[in-house]
């Protein structure tokens, strides 16, 4: 087992508000970890720091030994870290296939001149990436919708497409931001299976933000719990479920009755 992602005491604050303090995370190749916490705990901020939207004020992030600090979003993605979004951000007017193709741009070597001249490189790469994209869609059960405008897809399919699109960048690590939000239990069950199979098929390491505890508890090997930007617990699902600090963070502290 080799360390793939090494996040070392990352901190970030907006104005006076500490959004993330001294955040540490280690992920080995092939891990499936969860990141949970109540609303406003700093989970999405953590993703945004990882993907280069915000620059951390302290700490280091390394992917496969390579320092990620100072890179901008697209460089980080090309370094092997792809994400999905809490509020779906598809390219709404593009077709399903095109959405995936945009992401596969990270693989192409030919320039725009090649495109304009239809060079060998262009033809070969475009063909290969088209085929690859279709395979990917097949896996996500979207192949029959390949030429549909992505905006018109049903919600569940849009969620799946986001994951497929992220995978098309050929990431080493996949960050999923609330993939189950808005899904019904049936869909959630399928999603859980899908996440597991994605890990198998594409050999990716997955970090998952999710509110649905059932889902997180059932598929994640390790869970990190954030509250107010502070890591309050790290461990296996069982450990987390019993951790009083976690329960307190979620359910609140029982009030002393005289306080009222």
């Amino acid at each position, binding site marked *: 087992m080799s360390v793939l992602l090494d996040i070392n005491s990352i901190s970030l604050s907006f104005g006076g508000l500490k959004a993330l303090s001294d955040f540490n995370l280690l992920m080995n190749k092939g891990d499936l970890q969860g990141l949970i916490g109540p609303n406003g705990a700093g989970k999405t901020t953590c993703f945004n720091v990882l*993907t280069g*939207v915000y620059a951390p004020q302290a700490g280091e992030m390394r992917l496969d030994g390579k320092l990620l600090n100072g890179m*901008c*979003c*697209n*460089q980080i*993605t*090309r370094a092997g870290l*792809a*994400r999905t*979004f809490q509020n779906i*951000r*598809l*390219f*709404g*007017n*593009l077709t399903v*296939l*095109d959405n995936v*193709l*945009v*992401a*596969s*741009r*990270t693989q*192409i070597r030919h320039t*725009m001149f090649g*495109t*304009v*001249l*239809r*060079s*060998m490189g*262009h*033809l070969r*790469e*475009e*063909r290969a*990436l088209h085929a690859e994209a279709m395979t990917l869609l097949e896996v996500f059960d979207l192949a029959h919708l390949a*030429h549909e405008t992505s905006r018109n897809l049903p919600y569940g399919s849009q969620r799946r497409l986001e994951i497929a*699109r*992220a995978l*098309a*960048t050929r990431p080493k690590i996949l960050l999923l931001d609330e993939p189950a939000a808005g899904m019904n239990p049936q869909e959630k069950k399928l999603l859980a299976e899908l996440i597991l199979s994605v890990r198998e098929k594409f050999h990716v390491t997955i970090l998952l933000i999710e509110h649905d505890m059932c889902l997180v508890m059932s598929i994640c090997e390790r869970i990190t719990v954030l509250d107010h930007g502070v890591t309050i617990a790290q461990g296996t699902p069982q450990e987390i479920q019993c951790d009083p600090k976690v329960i307190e963070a979620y359910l609140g502290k029982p009030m002393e009755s005289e306080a009222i």
Partner: protein
Amino acid sequence: MVALLRGFYPYAIAILIAFVMYKVMPVGAEKIDLGILQINSFFTKVTGAIGIAIIMAVSLNIVNGYTGQFSLGHAGFMAIGAYTSAWITHYGSIHFFGNANAMEGLFTKGSALFVASLLAAGLVSALFGYLVGLPSLRLRGDYLAIVTLGFGEILRALLNQTQPVLDEFDIEEATRGEIFTGLGGALGFSGVPKYSNLFWVWSVAIITVIICYRLKQSIHGKAFLSIRENEIAAEAMGVPTTHYKVAAFAIAAFFAGVGGALFAHTLGNIVSPNEMNYQRSIDFVIMVVLGGMGSISGSVIAAVALTILPESLREFSEYRMIVYAILLIVFMIVRPDGIFGIREFWEVKWIRRLFRRTPKETHAP
């Protein structure tokens, strides 16, 4: 090798079509009698104007349609191309051939110079496009529109200050500075040799359309479109958005520059700073908006229609802008993506229904 040829073959067809147009369409007093219609050289002139409008609208679509930025300075790039090429052919002709008179015919000795000037026009314009595109990294939407507009106005003020165009007699005693700034000032660059004809205009127009279409269909093109759809997601999918945004400006400016060069060398056109103002830019914006932001065929159709209609409705020229204005407003409320939206017209469902074609998918490559 075969594949390489395949890449070129649409361009060859484009040049062939343009050549046929050039040969068939009448110039001067000739005309083609088709019974109800007599095609004469006025028809030819309008066809040329259409070609240039297509170049301008399709290229503007790369910025305003593909990447969803907003440029109101397209006429500025057109002016840069027009002046660059006019300068090269005018002074070049004097230098090489002794005079700057217009040359008839397709392959005259000046044609090589003309082609070189077209390329130079495109490149200089692209350079400016790159510079104007740089602010797009920090600005978006309406701020960018204002900057591009400001660029056009600055350009206009500067061009107004240039010196008179020198002819072969003046040039003997002129200094280098005078030759360099001899762009005609407010009167415009007059006396440009008239190399431009249907062959050149339509070769460039069709090639522009092919290039823009190929770009759009390719993965590079999807990267452009992804920026317009959702910039944050595009960035997260590894698309270097800044690179593409500036590239869009540079590519669009390249074609606008070439379009301007063709415009400058057309018989009866005067390149003057005051006619390259933002109102002309708005004309192109109208074409792109009505045709469909991101739709090449839409831009082409809009360019054709909006060039022909004012000619055929010359008596109603007072109302032309009123109609455009109302169309703009109504479209933005009812159909904000233009007639065809991001699609080409044969991809649009209601058109397909109209033609009752079997919905066969044709996807490049």
